[in-house]
């Protein structure tokens, strides 16, 4: 007698892509619990932890924003290895505006968000035709190039960077601003990708020739997706600049490119919630491992390997499946 695992969809019977027929509190709770509980837990945690872990949460949120931005680009068929570009450009715009023009964070952050989006989109506009690894190589090279330009020409403080920038009112303010931004971007992207507009973006990833023959300018759509993604990344950079009250060459570091991708892989690509979840696991983990000392990176790397091998679909996909389906073993008659 053999056994096989049977999976049955749980939950709401009359469900389509965007219309939910809710008949009872049970069904409403079924939808609300996975969205509301994590948010409540997150805000509860912010109330309980001390200043150090609040700072960690801020940088977690920043990496989560970069991971969300990465996931949007991937959804539109652009694999980015240079999230540091968006982050760095946003950070430097903020720094310049604050240092040379004395603008308060109230103005620098919005200007850097939009301006960073525009600058990054313009920088990558010539390579929008490239696909896959070729596009990825350019995104990898650009932040490395920008950092050398700053070093060589000694503009914007050169290797010293710009310090003594304006700070935000308090750590708690920074924390809530970053967390609200993450949640806003998360829900916006998740909604966007399921609209007809998002469908076109996903179409470009799967079969760009088919989208072209449908009379749609894929470069225009790619540029729009690139703008949204880089604006989110630039916001993260702008926020971090005011948190550190400093901007310098480290903003173009590889960390900002690699960690968002690692988060997306661990959390589950293509869901937005997955990469965010990944960031909320990886960044605090990396901090917690600081006590271990020299072997920190080894343990961290081991963790990444184990996760990718054991759960290649990503944590979020796994939980999603478990939540939406009953599983049971049934006998198979031969």
């Amino acid at each position, binding site marked *: 007698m053999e056994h096989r695992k049977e999976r049955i969809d749980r939950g709401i019977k009359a469900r389509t892509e965007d219309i939910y027929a809710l008949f009872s509190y049970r069904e409403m709770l079924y939808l609300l619990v996975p969205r509301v509980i994590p948010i409540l837990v997150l805000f509860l945690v912010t109330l309980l932890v001390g200043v150090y872990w609040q700072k960690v949460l801020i940088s977690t949120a920043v990496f989560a924003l970069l991971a969300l931005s990465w996931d949007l680009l991937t959804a539109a068929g652009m694999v980015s290895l240079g999230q540091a570009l968006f982050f760095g450009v946003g950070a430097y715009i903020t720094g310049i505006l604050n240092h040379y023009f004395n603008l308060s964070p109230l103005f620098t952050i919005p200007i850097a968000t939009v301006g960073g989006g525009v600058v990054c989109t313009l920088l990558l506009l010539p390579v929008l035709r490239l696909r896959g690894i070729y596009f990825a190589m350019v995104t990898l090279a650009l932040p490395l190039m920008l950092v050398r330009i700053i070093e060589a020409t000694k503009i914007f403080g050169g290797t010293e960077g710009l310090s003594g920038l304006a700070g935000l009112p308090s750590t708690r303010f920074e924390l809530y601003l970053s967390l609200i931004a993450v949640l806003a971007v998360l829900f916006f992207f998740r909604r966007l990708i399921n609209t*007809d507009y998002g469908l076109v973006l996903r179409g470009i990833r*799967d079969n760009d020739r088919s989208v072209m*023959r*449908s*009379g749609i300018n894929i470069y225009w759509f790619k540029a729009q997706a690139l703008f949204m993604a880089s604006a989110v990344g630039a916001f993260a950079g702008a926020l971090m600049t005011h948190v550190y009250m400093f901007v310098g060459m480290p903003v173009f570091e590889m960390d900002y490119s690699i960690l968002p991708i690692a988060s997306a892989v661990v959390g589950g690509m293509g869901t937005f919630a997955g990469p965010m979840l990944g960031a909320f696991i990886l960044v605090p983990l990396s901090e917690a491992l600081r006590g271990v000392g020299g072997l920190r990176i080894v343990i961290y790397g081991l963790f990444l390997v184990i996760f990718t091998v054991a759960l290649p679909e990503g944590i979020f996909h796994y939980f999603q499946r478990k939540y939406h389906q009953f599983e049971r073993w049934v006998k198979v008659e031969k």
Partner: protein
Amino acid sequence: MKEEAPFLKVTSLTKQFGGVRAVDTVSFDLKKGEILGVIGPNGSGKTTLVNLITGFVKPDAGKVFYQGRDITGMMPHRIADLGIARAFQMVKPFYQLPAFKNLIIPLFSPRVKRLTGGKYGDRDAIAIDLLEEVGFERDSFVPFKMASVLPHGYLKRMELALCMALRPELIILDELFSGLSMAEVASMLPIIEKLMSENLTIIMIEHRLRELFRISNRVMVLNYGKKIAEGPPKEVMESEEVKKAYLGSEAE
């Protein structure tokens, strides 16, 4: 009768890939409402010709005029926007989506928006109607099935629906019948005939000669990138040169 400008005019179109002339000085005219069949052995440049007309490949020499307008070297989406829709030989739909969601992309295009004056209504409903037109049985929920579970025949029909969704004036069908059974082809012919009755201009590339000769007004034969014959189906079938290209010349 007054001489009117041809609907589509192709003049000595040439494309070279390395040392191979995939399309070699091909010229032809097309009147509105005409059905042109294009045949030729494998590798004779049929698909390259389609790619040249629809802008996916830039020609080395020659021009393409559409409704009196030079469209040579335009971007594919601009050409599609002017009303030239093409079906790909290789179907590659969105496998993870229901069939009707695949049609949202052409329905979202600026051309459809313009032609409907912005009032396109519910795109999902239009998509399902279109799929029903090409033979997706709504009663058995075929338009709602995932594209990944649909058989090849349905995917080919969907390719046709994707073209129709664009509200084109010229449809170029690149081997629409390839890989289909006799019965499936027979069930698709009425759909094409319906398009013909709507005064659409169609270029059909096909290996199914019997079906092609039945519906086309004119047939063009390509071999090694060159046009070797053109004319009404009957004449082309009789032509010595065509027989030679298809069956090979006799041993000398």
